[in-house]
């Protein structure tokens, strides 16, 4: 009976310690909202997509297109860094790689959104988009 009591006590202590650690971990992560839960995070794009973008960026054809549009040579180094970070994360689950990728992609999103829109965006599609054509309605 004494052994059974000791086992039960140890089990309860063990449960207490495990739950305390889990609570502490959640509190720690909650204090760091920029770091996603490692168990669910994955690179925003597959590594193959970073490789394809880097390869496209470095091509002669892209140089021509970019010069034709922007009047300067394209910058491809960031795609190379992102590819390296993606592979690093896949191999070692590196936190630095995760941070670097998130930072890079956020910068891309910010750059795409920096222009002020000329018009106001809709909250819902136009009401008449799906309505029949006027002559069909008359029929």
């Amino acid at each position, binding site marked *: 009976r004494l052994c059974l009591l000791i086992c039960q006590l140890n089990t309860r202590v063990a449960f207490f310690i495990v739950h305390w650690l889990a609570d502490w971990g959640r509190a720690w992560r909650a204090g760091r909202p920029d770091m996603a839960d490692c168990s669910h995070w994955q690179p*925003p794009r597959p590594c193959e997509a970073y490789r394809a973008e880097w390869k496209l960026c470095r091509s002669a054809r892209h140089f021509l297109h970019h010069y034709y549009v922007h009047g300067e040579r394209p910058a491809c180094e960031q795609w190379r860094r992102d590819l390296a970070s993606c592979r690093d994360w896949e191999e070692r689950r590196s936190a630095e790689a995760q941070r670097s990728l998130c930072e890079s992609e956020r910068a891309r999103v910010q750059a795409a959104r920096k222009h002020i829109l000329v018009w*106001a965006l809709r909250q819902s599609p136009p009401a008449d988009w799906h309505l029949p054509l006027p002559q069909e309605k008359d029929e």
Partner: protein
Amino acid sequence: MTGAPDVRGSGPAAGEQLQQQHVSCQVFPKRLAQGNPQQGFLSSFFTSNQKCQLRLLRTLETNPYVKLLLDAMKHSGCAVNKDRHFSCEDCNGNVSGGFDASTSQIVLCQNNIRNQAHMNRVVTHELIHAFDHCRAHVDWFTNLRHLACSEVRAANLSGDCSLVNEIFRFHFGLKQHHQTCVRDRATLSILAVRNISKEVAKNAVDEVFESCFNDYEPFGRIPHNKTYARYAHRDFQNRDRYYSNI
């Protein structure tokens, strides 16, 4: 729309705005006809209509620019139905197509669309207008800046101003020539549907250019050819993963 080849734009529907009518009615005569604007079966334009329908079908099914636009519009609540939202009609002048915001319909000028590649570009161009109509409160009829912005985006993103197309038009230029082409073609498209001076149209384009030239939605980049369009479509399909992991 203008009389120049390959230029298209958005136009108001028949009777919508009296001050606009005299321009658009000259371009889309069928849009003002009373009753049925569609081609009849025994019409002498049956062959060109049939070609237009077949080319349109092929574009909708295979072109990566169009497939991305259709997906993006569906995501925004404007699923496109070929029979409802497209119409093959004869048009005056050299106009290739237009977007009729009052009926939410894309007009394809069956007598002016030369081949499949041309159809691809026209559909892409007009779908960009339709996409803008779907996602934003675009005042096509009374706000010249809105019209200018959509024309800048359509000229920029549809392939209208690709290096090859410009060379075929005998417009030679390399460094930043794309931007010159976009400005010029947007101005021409505005002049086709608005009875205003070239100076006023050009000023409207200049006012909105910085913002609208850099608005790449839904492509996320300027699709210089089908490879870029496919990559853009891949990114669009991946957007849930993308935004949940940055």
